[in-house]
């Protein structure tokens, strides 16, 4: 039952990704597709991959999409009658996908399909996995870092290229922006940067009053007359 609920939600969310008028809704349905797919992976027994889906797809890729879609003022598309002009080519592609799906599907579990074969499904336990079973993580590690390490290194190179590309694109114009050095600013002392009109520096009392003005808006010291620029 869980299988049918998750799959139907995934299919409906996938449909809504395409049909939603607001692009933000579209990305949010995209997130829903990944959530349901994650659930399907749990049903398959791939718990680690389900969590990886949540971390990578929803936590990183979908957040990336959301940032882009939310910040750019993408106009909300109005879907009028013009949708029918897509029908010939998209209809052909859709039919090809349908045919492929029927070709691949496990026919015993869908008895009403025209391609259903009359076999009884066997049920038996795989005892081998009860004797000693590796977790998903161990299995993945044993394969990925030993036999297929080249793929791992190549994919890390691809990600490195993507990262360098992003830095190159965004660093281009801002290398000459003047930045503030906070520590230097805090170390500036009013006695050294403010000069009075006759060329003298501020005395200690005047520097103190200046600081009071800056911090509190008015000097708290009572009985002091501040005349002119004194």
């Amino acid at each position: 039952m869980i299988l049918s609920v998750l799959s139907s939600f995934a299919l409906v969310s996938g449909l809504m990704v395409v049909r939603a008028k607001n692009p933000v809704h579209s990305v949010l349905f995209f997130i829903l597709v990944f959530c349901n797919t994650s659930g399907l992976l749990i049903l398959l027994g791939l718990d680690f991959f389900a969590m990886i889906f949540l971390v990578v797809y929803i936590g990183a890729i979908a957040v990336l999409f959301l940032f882009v879609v939310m910040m750019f003022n993408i106009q909300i598309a109005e879907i009028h009658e013009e949708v029918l002009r897509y029908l010939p080519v998209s209809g052909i592609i859709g039919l090809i996908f349908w045919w492929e799906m029927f070709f691949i599907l496990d026919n015993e579990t869908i008895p009403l399909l025209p391609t259903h074969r009359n076999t009884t499904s066997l049920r038996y336990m795989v005892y081998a996995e009860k004797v000693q079973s590796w977790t998903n993580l161990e299995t993945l590690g044993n394969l990925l870092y030993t036999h297929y390490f080249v793929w791992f290194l190549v994919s890390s190179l691809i990600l490195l290229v993507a990262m360098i590309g992003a830095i190159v694109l965004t660093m281009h114009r801002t290398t000459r922006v003047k930045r503030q050095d906070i520590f230097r600013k805090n170390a500036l002392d009013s006695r050294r940067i403010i000069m009075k009109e006759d060329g003298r520096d501020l005395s200690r009392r005047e520097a103190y009053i200046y600081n009071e003005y800056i911090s509190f808006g008015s000097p708290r010291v009572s009985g002091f007359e501040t005349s002119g620029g004194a």
Partner: protein
Amino acid sequence: MIIDTTEVQTINSFSTSGFFKEVYGLIWIIPILTLILEITIGVLVIVWLEREISAAIQQRIGPEYAGPLGILQAIADGTKLLLKEDLLPSRGDIRLFSVGPSIAVISVLLSYLVIPFGYRLVLADLGIGVFLWIAISSIAPIGLLMSGYGSNNKYSFSGGLRAAAQSISYEIPLTLCVLSISLRLEIGRNDQVVLPYDSDLDSSTVDIVEAQSKYGFWGWNLWRQPIGFLVFLISSLAECERLPFDLPEAEEELVAGYQTEYSGIKYALFYLASYLNLLVSSLFVTVLYLGGWNFSIPYIPIPELFRINQMAGIFGMTIDIFITLAKAYLFLFISITTRWTLPRMRIDQLLNLGWKFLLPISLGNLLLTTSSQLVSL
């Protein structure tokens, strides 16, 4: 070979231990409800603690009118928020606006599934354990983005974007610290290092706590991973959006960030999510670094006196829960004290700290952990 895997059989491969595996049906709901009750009371306690400790730091008296010593203050706040009018922005996206706080709360509540309060006192002893928390806390930025966007307020929107950026930046050092802990070696009998296919060295939280139980106080992961502890502390404070990483709620700059337009029970949900997140982070600090439920004073056989075997004994279980909560209180105290000690960081300082400081340090910690294991082999 055709295997008709029913749903029950496939979900069985998701967990490693089986105390609750044979009990199906509605009886599942009782431990879950117990934990939810515990968490709710925990949040009330944390709210009270925060106010009392903040008051003590600021040399004033905390709440004193709602109940004796102000214990019922949190309930009073909750009731007030429940009875307030629920405002909706007129031209904002109402559905996103309403769903946003719920996603933040749900993602935090689901993380409580894997916290062990005792050897058998865990709702789901999953093989992937801690990684469930990491994965589900990655969903929280989506809720923040939805709330910020749906408010039809550019300051809320900006606050939501900043909060999401903060969340995703500090997830990575957090994950790397957790990874460094999961790479532990177990010293089996005869002082032989146990190889990976001899036992289950998975990310299960119960196993992580068990690995810290050998030498009492000195068996804590805190001594094995001091850098990781500090990075984890800072990253989890940033994930909970507590000061000094409070920018999404900063009052002068962004009014209240993504929470600006919220009133009534939705605001209460954000408030709840914040404290729930704090509680789950502090519980994870105890599980990962402070030895969990182990009574950590070495050479005192008190736990063995109260336990007939390790599996039974109500009094033993109570002591375990008490020890876990007492250790969690340490982190709570640290985070509440930090709130009134350190100034708030700006968003660029915050992101710099996450990406340019904590990420290389946590990578270095990982490198150090793995290379020290190579040396000991």
